[in-house]
């Protein structure tokens, strides 16, 4: 098993933390839905929404729900490898016994040696469907029905799931290399030059015709 990346660790902390404190007979959560939105620079936002029954909800709230800083610290120290997050938010809905963790990290995707980007998917998850740049997975982790939705960057192309079912399972994709700010000068310059050439041509034709005399 490789060190988990952002898309996996929130899932892990939600389950592991709960599994540690919940009564053995109780599932950690009723459902767990994760959304991973990846940006072109490899950063990403991961949102994990968990729904609980009454017992686990009370335990979870007592340990983490009332103390988002503690939840963040727990993630940082227990799942600290390859994690570098710069944003963390924990929302709670007591009436529906749901909690939503949102994390932004600069290192959500990994650059592979072949130049492609990858987003690891826990081997317990199977591909359900993908529509455009949105990929859906589902799995059953520690008795909890879980889903993952991965939204690839807009410019992503040639996406595929590799090493299916293994601990190396990952969603890989290609991205055009980002262009620098000077690129806009080149584009504008070429456009302007093109326009100039057209205008020159038009002016030349207009000049050839000359003024019409009666």
């Amino acid at each position, binding site marked *: *098993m*490789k*060190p*988990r990346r952002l898309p996996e*660790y929130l899932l*892990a902390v939600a389950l592991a933390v709960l599994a*540690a404190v919940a009564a*053995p007979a109780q599932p950690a959560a009723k459902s767990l839905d994760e959304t991973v939105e990846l940006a072109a*620079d*490899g*950063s990403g936002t991961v949102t994990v929404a968990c729904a609980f029954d009454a017992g686990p909800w009370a335990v979870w709230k007592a*340990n983490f729900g009332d*103390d988002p800083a*503690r939840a963040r*610290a*727990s993630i940082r*120290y*227990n*799942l*600290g*490898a*390859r*994690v*570098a997050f710069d944003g963390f938010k924990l929302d709670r809905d007591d009436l529906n016994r749901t909690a939503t963790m949102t994390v932004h990290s*600069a*290192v959500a995707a*990994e*650059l592979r*040696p072949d*130049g492609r980007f990858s987003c690891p998917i826990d081997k317990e998850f199977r591909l359900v469907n993908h529509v455009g740049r949105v990929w859906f997975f589902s799995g059953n982790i520690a008795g909890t029905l879980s889903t993952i939705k991965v939204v690839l960057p807009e410019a992503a192309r040639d996406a595929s799931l590799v090493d299916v079912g293994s601990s190396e399972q990952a969603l890989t994709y290609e*991205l055009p*290399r*980002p262009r*620098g*700010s*000077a*690129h*806009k*000068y*080149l*584009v*504008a*310059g*070429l*456009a*302007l*030059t*093109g*326009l*100039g*050439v*057209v*205008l*020159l*041509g*038009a*002016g*030349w034709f*207009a*000049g050839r015709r000359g003024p019409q005399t009666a």
Partner: protein
Amino acid sequence: MKHPLVLLGGLCTGLGALLAILGLARVGERPARLTWSAPEVKSALMTAGYKVYGNRNIEEGRHYLSKIVFKNDGERPVTGFAISYKIDDYIEWTEPTVRREIPAGFSFVELYYPRLPAAVSQLRNAVTTTLRTRIRWTENGREREENIARDITLRAVNEIAYCDVPQSEAVLFTDYFSAAAFTMTMVTPNDPVVTLYTSEITRLAGGTTAGIAGGPDEVKRICAIIYDYMGRTGLRYVGDSGVPSNFDNIASMVQTVRLPRDVIVNNQGLCIELSLLWCSILEHLGVRSAMILVPGHAFVVAYSPDQGMPLAAGLPIECTAITPRAVGKDAPVPFAEAVQMAAQTVQHWAKDGRIIPLEVQKIQAYGFTPPELPEIDTARLAETLAARLGRGASVAMPMPADMNAAAAPAPLGDDSPAPAPLEPDDRNVGPSPAPDPGTGARGYRDPEGRYTLEIMPGWRAESVGNGAVAIANGESSIFISPFSGVRQAEQVLIQLYQQLQPQFRNFQPLSQDIAGFGGRRAVIARYTGISPKGTLTRLSLAGVDASAGPAYGIIVSMPLSLYESIRGSVDQMLRSFQFAP
């Protein structure tokens, strides 16, 4: 006159060409720039679990030594990135991890999992070394290199730090034992010493099937035999603190924990040390086990192979009950009562939630495997174990070569550094030297006639009154003195320790033994430290039980540099010691 469109077209073309040139020249664009966060480097590693740090698959990879987050802050790619590491004296520069191109704006993490050499598990004292990180990359056509150095500490093999969560973030009991899994690296079922010890037990048990299909009753039977064997061979619980209980200070979470082999050799241990020994024996027998941590204490639970591992299904055993006083009793505690005590402890802390079961096989399967251990003279250990059961002569404890420098001599013989009052004094020679024709030794008789011993050539003995003798050779010395007011060897040892320990700097224990001295029982403790004169010294302290006469205290000290050359003669002199009939 030119047509206005021609003029406008010319202007556009010129301006466009200028912009295109600017674009091609990437004017105004931020150049490639590699930046990184301050390296997160673990300041201290536990050498007993040195294999853990080299394994990126353990516990989500969180036991890395170094973590650095890099970012290409520029608008052009960084190329030829390579990072390698070195740990002074232990690991040479590693093969670089290479990234051919880092796109603009991209971040990534570099982690280092050091493959430390097995030699680190021989460290008896903590050492400080340096982690060096070398980063090479190319940005804007220019090759760059940066070197980062951070000091790290390699803890002694017996040092366990239970917590690796920053104190500011620790809340729950489990937080304070976040690194407790490292204790499982000290469960050593395959150590030849444990094997030998276990074979002695199974010999008494007439064999066992507990690890195969014996069921709970067989597990209980073998556990009772282990418990009984430990009691009969004098294994004792020592120490007034087991698992640290002061949670306000993270420093207090570091504890010196001896390996099971050391507990066997020394025949004593803290609650956690006894628990680790129990786990080692049980696992050797194929009986699944767990060490249980509760506030201030540790004990063990044994499981039948056909059971799961829930706490309630196991057989809890209060390991310290072999020493009745440890559990508030005056008489020996039967095994059934030790089980009952542990069961009550489980019940008490389970309600509270402050209870951590560490399942040996499960945690070792994660990768918390034992370190490589030095060879030990098991033949001598076998004699020792036999002697403890009353099947042999006086006990001469063998120690691992790295601990005592040699398979141990008989009584005190071994090592020691120099206490101030016993620093050499060669002005006087003891009375009555009657040379031994074989060794050149001279006899020394206590002026009051209470004991005799032989003095080896090069040593001078001086009676210092009250039945005490100081024997010196340069900076090395032996001091033997009667102790009034106490009768137990342990009491003498404590007094000696209290007197001498404050005089030394960096005073470190090496080992403890029980041995025979002049036909009486002696308890020996060995240390190293820096003497008041600044000499790195080995010091042996011993208490000798009172019998017909008073108890005795013995201090042997010598510069560590002379240890190998002198210990033989020290050993001979001490072996020659005889109490007058």
